[in-house]
């Protein structure tokens, strides 16, 4: 009985770790898309952040310097996106795809130039990563039945960024639904003309939304290479940015449902390797690849309107043109 409990806790523990970059990226996408800017460049910003974090940590020896670099690099990409889509009213999908391709190529090229390591950064030592944090009284409470292991194995012992990811959800919710900034930002994503007509700048709002998205993606990147992993590996984001986008749509652009989508996708990611070679009655060996594509399949099914409907912000992807041309 206790062993099953420990197993469950281990799975949930893995879920939290794998869902962390999804949560950061999905919250980034939520803020950006609620302001009306499609953020398909989550993947690129995540990857750039991961590389910058690993590279600067290697060069400086401090994961905090790496974190700062991750925030900066991913913010710069966000600003490029903003310059193309907000200032010049470009096509948002194209700009996002360009950022993804740019990040994919640049990280490997710069990694080769700096470290001559086949597009990787050197592995980071223990002091160069965000270490697990033991919450108070862990050893005292561990002995308690059921609750003890829950606290010690699942709640305690994560690194700072995992806690930050969980904190980002209520923070984003509070910012968007409980503040003046959030009200205006969401209005800009629904009917930017209305925001303009009450004398508030739509571009300024959208730039701020995009900046927040950049910062959150930077956190996710730093997590990948200096907390979850120990160094940058080429293409290490491995579609997590797209998965976060799927979670965002799956969660209907609302923080709590998006959180659950991230956790669900993280759970699937955790159990997939554990199911490798497991025989289920009647079905036979579990097709692991099928489990891996489940998040995308579920998102497509949701988008097709099979269970509930996912309604995007109305002005999503629509550039805001202030002055109508012609009478």
């Amino acid at each position, binding site marked *: 009985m206790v062993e099953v409990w420990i197993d469950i806790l281990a799975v949930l523990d893995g879920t939290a770790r794998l869902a962390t970059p999804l949560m950061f990226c999905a919250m980034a996408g939520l803020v950006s898309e609620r302001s009306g800017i499609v953020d398909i460049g989550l993947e690129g910003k995540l990857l750039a952040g991961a590389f910058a974090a690993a590279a600067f940590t290697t060069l400086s020896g401090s994961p905090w310097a790496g974190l700062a670099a991750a925030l900066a690099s991913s913010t710069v990409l966000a600003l490029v996106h903003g310059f193309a889509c907000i200032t010049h009213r470009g096509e948002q999908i194209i700009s996002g795809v360009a950022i993804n391709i740019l990040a994919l190529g640049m990280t490997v090229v710069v990694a080769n130039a700096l470290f001559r390591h086949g597009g990787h950064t050197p592995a980071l030592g223990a002091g160069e990563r965000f270490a697990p944090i033991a919450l108070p009284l862990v050893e005292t409470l561990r002995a308690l039945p059921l609750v003890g292991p829950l606290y010690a194995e699942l709640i305690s012992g994560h690194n700072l960024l995992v806690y930050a990811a969980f904190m980002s959800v209520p923070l984003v919710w509070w910012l968007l639904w*409980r*503040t*003046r*900034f*959030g*009200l*205006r930002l*969401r*209005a800009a994503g*629904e*009917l930017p*003309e*209305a*925001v*303009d*007509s*009450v*004398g*508030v*700048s739509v571009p300024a709002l959208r730039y701020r939304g995009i900046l927040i998205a950049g910062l959150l993606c930077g956190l996710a990147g730093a997590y990948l290479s200096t907390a979850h992993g120990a160094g940058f590996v080429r293409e290490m984001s491995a579609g997590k940015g797209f998965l976060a986008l799927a979670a965002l749509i799956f969660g209907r652009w609302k923080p709590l449902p998006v959180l659950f989508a991230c956790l669900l996708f993280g759970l699937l990611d955790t159990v997939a390797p554990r199911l490798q070679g497991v025989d289920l009655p009647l079905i036979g060996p579990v097709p692991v690849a099928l489990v891996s594509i489940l998040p995308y399949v579920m998102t497509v099914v949701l988008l097709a309107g099979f269970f509930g409907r996912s309604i995007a912000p*109305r002005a999503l992807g629509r550039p805001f043109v202030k*002055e109508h*041309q*012609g*009478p």
Partner: protein
Amino acid sequence: MLGDDGAGESSHAAVRLRGITKRFGAVLANDDVDLDIPAGTVHGIVGENGAGKSTLASIVYGLHAPDGGSIEIAGRPAVLRSPGDAIALGVGMVHQHFMLIPTFTVLENVVLGIEGSFRLRSGEADNRARLKDLSLAHGLEIDPDALVDDLPVGLRQRVEILKALFRGTRILILDEPTGVLTPDETDRLFANLRAVCDAGGTVVLITHKLREVMAVCDSVSIMRHGRLVGSRKTSETTPGELAELMVGRKIGQAVRMSESSVRSPVLRVEGLTWRSPGGAPGLQNVSLELRAGEILGVAGVSGNGQSELLDVLSGLSGVQEGHIEFAGRRIDRASPATPAGMRALGLTHVPEDRHRRGLVLPFEARENAVLGRPECAGPGLWTSGTAMQAQAERLIARFDIRPPEPRLPATAFSGGNQQKIVLAREFESEPVVLLLGQPTRGVDIGTVEIVHSRVMALKERGTGILLVSTELDEILALADRIMVMSGGRVVGTVPAADATVRQLGLMMTGAGEGAGA
């Protein structure tokens, strides 16, 4: 006009414009406009579509910067770089297309931009109380927590007015506010505007409906081709004089309808029901009969099933329940018809939204002239420049389309001439049945006359015409019978000769049907 020392005068003008000029590319939208709007009055600005009324209003509201001229608000020179500047000076605007976030509550929409504090909660109680005071003071009751999406159009407009008043508006501009309202809602709006004036405010009403100007305005300014051509006190003018000023020449009253003898039915619809996926009313059990040489007018507030009716009849949407009998065919769920099929049977369609459905705007006029009529485009699968040119020239001659240039893209034509391209194309095949959606929306008065006379001529030649229009005047002028729709149902059908605006207005709100407005 006055000397520089007109300080005593300016205290009476809420808005004073001098030499306002605004250009959009090659179009001169406002040409040296001088205008004084007296404080504490309802002032109308009338003009045809494209006369520059909305541009002028946008300039006063800070949405467009004028290329030249000066603005004074409440006696002080004003530089308006954004709506924020105008709001600060007490100017508010209710736009033609509502500037409301459907997913927000009334209160959230009202306070947007002036929430009072960074945390929404801390300002909420004050805002709520202020909104309530304003509602009571002006007789504009509203539930502050209702979602705007759930409100009927009349109430949404009320929210817009409250939104402006909440910002301390003393000069309220309304741009074509009645287009989406029933006559009853219009009356209520005018009462509200009067209340705003009585409380010391100034109202500027932009409209093309002379009846409304006469009903509610104290004074009126008339615009034509970007220029201000005159100002009148409404007590000292007539609709006829205003119309002449708007158009620049005498216009005859609407085309008189001729009594055509009753002929055989050409289109019969029984129990048509269509549910839209978006949850809009769709169509519920609609039955109608259209005879040859008859115009059946479909009246109703926009969005009550008229568009869906046109879609289903033209074959764009499939029949779900009920059936259509046309040209010896029975169209129902089991045997659907395509738009091309319906055209082949002799039913053509002038869509309500010519930009989205009637024309391909970047295409040349001659290419647009053969859309849906492949037989005019050339032999077989090929298109022939000569054939398209000939077809376009035919249409241009018949409808006096200007400029007469078949190679010009459709975007280069004015709204009225774009509409003429669509009408000419659909009229030319002498259809058995014509579905005519909003034939004169956004079209200048001169063109309205032409369109109406061509519609009557087509009817004389025996075409059955289903006319959908939100302009009651148009329906009353053209239709033989009037069918009123509300909430996707047919409320009733009355002979045009016996119909009154008041009776139709009541029917449009679904009165007696139990259908919520």
